[in-house]
């Protein structure tokens, strides 16, 4: 429990750091931030929008620390200002429309990739120098060095445009009625298949290699030899003795990989016009919608921090050592 609380404390500090970065960014622009922002929008924006912009960032004549406190107060109440691209919708509302899709796509993509990659890693370590071990890692590392969104473009071109197996974009068909029905679920899955395939393909190699390398050293350790000597069935030795412990380093890097995968999946969303945060983000960039951009950064950061904490809980459950020292 102490361990989890300590981690939670760290995530709160990280969240505060993200907030602080967010606050200072507009003030890092060359010159006076208020004038610079307003000059950029001159003529393009209604006076109300400019006032909203000023209010969002607390860009007033008050001293910096009081601006900072105003800003923190706003964010804590969930007020992230008014979007410029979707004026006059508040940023929190705009982000809300796409959050579910991003969590669904990136979340299931990263979990799927982790599960498949780790299993393949076990297989590669077990059948050492077999075909899984020789060819698959190189192939997947090659896929991993392709830019995510480029893999997405290639998949869309091949399976969507040329072969017509999958839809060319969006989260569901125009004529589908959203709801908890089987038909709609199938439609959503058909639309998510290609983007998810891209995410899985691009990240599989890392999980495979990490699992393979730890498995190889774990398979040479004394307790595994003992388990073998006891005559336990090989499947049990590999999965219950070796794999469970070899998984630990992968779980540790899982938390850090989340942020990375999310970044890639944002770009994938753009290629597939998938209505998540990535799509909103590119709209925000095109329209210089700073409140929306910063709101998205903040929400994604909080999501990643929350997911990291959940990973910590899983780690605690997997690793007997931390559990014992924690209780």
């Amino acid at each position, binding site marked *: 429990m102490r361990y989890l609380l300590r981690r939670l404390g*760290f*995530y709160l*500090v*990280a969240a505060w*750091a993200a907030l602080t*970065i*967010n606050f200072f*960014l507009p003030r*890092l*622009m060359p010159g006076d931030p208020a004038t610079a922002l307003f000059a950029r929008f001159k003529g393009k924006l209604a006076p109300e929008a400019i006032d909203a912009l000023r209010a969002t960032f607390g860009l007033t004549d008050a001293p910096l620390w009081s601006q900072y406190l105003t800003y923190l107060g706003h964010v804590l109440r969930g007020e992230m200002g008014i979007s410029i691209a979707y004026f006059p919708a508040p940023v929190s509302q705009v982000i809300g429309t796409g959050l579910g899709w991003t969590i669904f796509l990136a979340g299931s993509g990263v979990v799927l990739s982790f599960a498949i990659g780790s299993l393949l890693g076990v297989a590669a370590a*077990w*059948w*050492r120098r077999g075909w899984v071990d020789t060819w698959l890692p190189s192939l997947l*590392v*090659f896929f991993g*060095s*392709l*830019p*995510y*969104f*480029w*893999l997405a*473009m*290639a998949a*869309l*071109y091949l399976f969507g*445009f*040329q072969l017509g197996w999958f839809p*060319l974009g969006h989260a569901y068909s125009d004529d589908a009625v959203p709801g908890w029905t089987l038909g709609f679920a199938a439609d959503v899955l058909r639309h998510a298949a290609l983007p998810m395939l891209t995410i899985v393909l691009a990240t599989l190699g890392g999980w495979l290699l990490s699992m393979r390398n730890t498995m*190889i*050293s774990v398979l*040479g*350790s004394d307790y595994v*030899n003992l388990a073998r000597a006891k005559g336990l069935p090989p499947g049990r030795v590999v999965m219950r003795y070796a794999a469970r412990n070899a998984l630990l380093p992968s779980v540790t890097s899982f*938390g*850090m990989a*989340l*942020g*990375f995968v*999310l*970044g*890639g999946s*944002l*770009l994938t969303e*753009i*290629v597939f016009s998938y209505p998540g945060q990535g799509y909103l*983000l*590119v709209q*925000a*960039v*095109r329209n210089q919608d*700073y409140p929306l*951009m910063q709101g*998205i*950064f903040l929400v*994604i*950061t909080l999501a*990643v*921090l929350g997911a*990291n904490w959940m990973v910590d809980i899983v780690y605690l459950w997997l690793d007997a050592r931390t559990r014992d020292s924690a209780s």
Partner: protein
Amino acid sequence: MSAPDLGRSGLSTWALAIRRDRKALIGASMLALFAIVAVTGPWFAGDPTALVGIPLQGPSPAHWLGTNGQGQDVLTQLIVGTRVSLAIGFAVGLIVVLFGALVGVTAGYFGGRVDGLLSVFSNIFLVLPGMPLAIVIAAYLPSGPFTVALVLVVTGWAWNARVLRAQALALRRRDFVAAAIVAGESDIRILMAEILPNMMSVLVAQVIGSTVYAIGAQVGLEFLGLGDVSRVTWGTMLYWAQNDSALLTGSWWTFVPAGLCVALVGFALTLLNSGFDEITNPRLQLERFWRVHLIRHGQTPGRSTPVVREHA
């Protein structure tokens, strides 16, 4: 984690890796090819922004990789774009490791409160999602290669700091460092003369890894339109391909070459790194020695490592 090798400096180990390891040799040759194109390309390829034909024409004898949505030659753009793309990639890879080394080695060497503070600092940057942060910062700065490089350094140094801190911690406990401390050497001298030279192989491996990251992330940012879209790079080629709806008109030649080049450079660097690991990692090295030994004596090597051998 490869053990620090005391006898050789980083660079000569690299030369050895390239001579001995097939993977490293392939990686190095691919990289050399790209480097030649990057240096000489802009001289012979011609003007990449010249309008040479009808937009979105497929590959033909006149235009080997076809034309893009503006009617510019894709091959010319690819060749000219190599220089900026690689330059940013390697520069960022180098700076990121230098900064990471500064933070990580300081933390690992001094330990205590300095370590605690610096570790929290780098862990925060490690856990913040890099891409969204890079996008937000880049959006505020004037667009161009300098901005792209800057945001990639800000979002990319933390991983290096973590790895190099662990290395410094391990070296700190070694006898020769303890001897230097007892002998009354100054901290700066110990860091410069004892710790850093012994981390050379790790540092070079980190530069390679960071360059792979930097090239990929740079192309991603430029794809979003956060680079200077009037300048020809691999990233902006992909930006224009997406903007001109190259995909939905079936013009594969406008986006396949640039992405493939990014992947090939990344793949070459990864090959080089893993070949290097085979040389410096004593475990892998021993295993290979053992395999060769067994095969020479007409036996089939098993799945086992030489550290704990399995007898079938």
